[in-house]
């Protein structure tokens, strides 16, 4: 569904409308639970929701729809994504897109519905992890989601739109004129069989080299948003709501004549090549809502530059004032 529409409101509604427009008369099967219930409520009002009886069933149906060559989404939060991992793995092997929207909430276990970024290392694990998109503000949600759809369908590879629950509850405004080029895959093509079984080891080896080649092409699509990085000496690395806060902190630090800048990976996995981004850096600050997952992820790129971590846990969000004080105190 295309056509210009500017929408002002909560991220859950904006995301819901983006889903409605992108599935275009299709269906989204889901299992409603907080904090994703608001997305489901929105798409149910628009008539595209069908109830699944478990997250595993939702993931399988999503995989089935995609295998048939149609677009749909699966929506999870917290540990719910674990029940989708099998479908993600099969979609990788089937070479069909698999579009997942995952809301990061406080874990392990049930935890609470408040924001956390504890899923990064799980989502990006394996030989051919899904493409992970990560918005940092409400306004870019529909546009980035459509970009993710395009990449997932072009490469016939699973993708995850990873959004923390803080962003989901924020308000903003976004254009919902979403255009994604037509693509065909799965049973809609001439392919007769969709299978992930390769009993001959040589066949499996060939299969994996094919996926490897494709994944190298996907790597080239990786991108990060660089903010005031031209002369930055104090570099903040962050994604999601943390990047939203970090960007404001960078603005204020600049007003204090501190050469701060920010790297915000728009695609978290595969990560864009950050080599060369830290040559002028004196210190790097990783701001995240986890126990150092982003810190460990980018460590390999920073050379000998001193790295510091500024985290929040348990559903708390890093505080802008606190971050500014922390950076100033460590200069």
């Amino acid at each position, binding site marked *: 569904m295309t056509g210009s529409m500017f929408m002002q409101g909560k991220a859950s509604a904006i995301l819901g409308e983006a889903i409605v427009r992108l599935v275009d008369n299709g269906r989204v099967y889901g299992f409603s639970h907080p904090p994703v219930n608001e997305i489901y409520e929105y798409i149910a009002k628009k008539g595209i929701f069908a109830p699944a*009886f478990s997250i595993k069933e939702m*993931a399988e*149906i999503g*995989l*089935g729809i995609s295998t048939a*060559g*149609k677009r749909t989404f699966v929506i999870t939060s917290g540990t719910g994504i674990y029940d989708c991992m*099998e*479908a993600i793995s099969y979609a990788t092997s089937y070479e069909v897109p698999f579009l997942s929207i995952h809301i990061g909430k406080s874990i392990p276990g049930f935890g609470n519905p408040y924001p956390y970024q504890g899923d990064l290392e799980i989502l990006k694990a394996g030989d051919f992890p899904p493409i992970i998109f990560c918005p940092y503000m409400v306004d870019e949600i529909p546009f980035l989601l459509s970009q993710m759809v395009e990449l997932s369908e072009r490469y016939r590879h699973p993708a995850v739109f990873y959004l923390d629950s803080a962003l989901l509850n924020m308000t903003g405004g976004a254009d919902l004129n979403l255009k994604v080029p037509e693509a065909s895959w799965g049973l809609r093509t001439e392919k007769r069989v969709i299978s992930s*079984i390769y009993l001959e080891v040589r066949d499996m080896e060939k299969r994996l080299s094919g996926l490897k080649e494709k994944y190298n092409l996907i790597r080239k699509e990786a991108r990060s948003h660089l903010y005031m990085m031209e002369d930055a000496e104090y570099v903040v690395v962050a994604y999601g709501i943390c990047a939203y806060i970090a960007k404001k902190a960078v603005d204020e630090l600049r007003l204090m004549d501190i050469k701060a800048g920010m790297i915000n990976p728009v695609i978290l996995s595969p990560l864009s090549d950050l080599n060369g981004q830290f040559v002028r850096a004196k210190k790097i600050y990783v701001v995240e809502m986890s126990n150092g997952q982003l810190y460990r992820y980018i460590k390999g790129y920073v050379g000998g530059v001193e790295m510091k971590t500024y985290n929040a846990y348990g559903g708390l969000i890093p505080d802008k004032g606190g971050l500014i004080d922390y950076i100033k105190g460590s200069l």
Partner: protein
Amino acid sequence: MDEKRKIEKVYGFPEILTEKKAHFCPGCSHGIMTKVISEAIGEMGLEDSSIGVYGAGCAAIMYDYINIKGVAAPPGGAVGIATGIKSAGKGSLVFAYQGEGDLFYGLSSLIGAGVRGEGITIICENNLNMGISGGAMSPATPVGVMTTTSPQGRHIASYGAPVSIAEMLKDIKGIKYIARCSTHSPGAVRKTKSIIKKAFELQLYGEGTAFIEALGMCPTNMHLTPVEAALKIREVYGELQTGEIKHP
């Protein structure tokens, strides 16, 4: 008096059955079901519109033998995948084919499809054990039967009582058709084919979900000859309600 002799073909190799050598063990009912499903699709002229979704297990690569579009599902995922495929294209005939162990693994998908009345056909080949695992006990393994995980024979105190799959699903309103059949004898195989054709027909008429429990032999894991395995299934078959259990 000259009489023109009429030649009528009464039997032949099903056209969509490929010539690929099947990997099933001798006497395995998956082989029989492969042929029966191929015949049903061929006789109904549904070769171009049928999609088979095969569950994890010994029959996972059935797509190699039935020349229609096919998908090898994740463990327990055949019904979910079939639901998704049907939801994406109502015009196709979509069936899920699973062993009973795999069916139980994906029980929430089976119940979900049934409750929503998804227009798919679910064929569960119940051979009383999980063949691919080397013969582990399945929820349907009868009391007393020895498997790799019930080496002293299934007894209720430790393993619980076996589940009657077809009966378990009877109260789900969206499942409009339930039948139990078998492959233990030529007569039973013929009945199985009619049941499959009826279920496919109901799908074409949009009559909700259809569920078929086809009892069958796994001689290898039953440690029996094919004939002995068939006799064992006949014994089990005799103890359960058979034929059409529920119809619209």
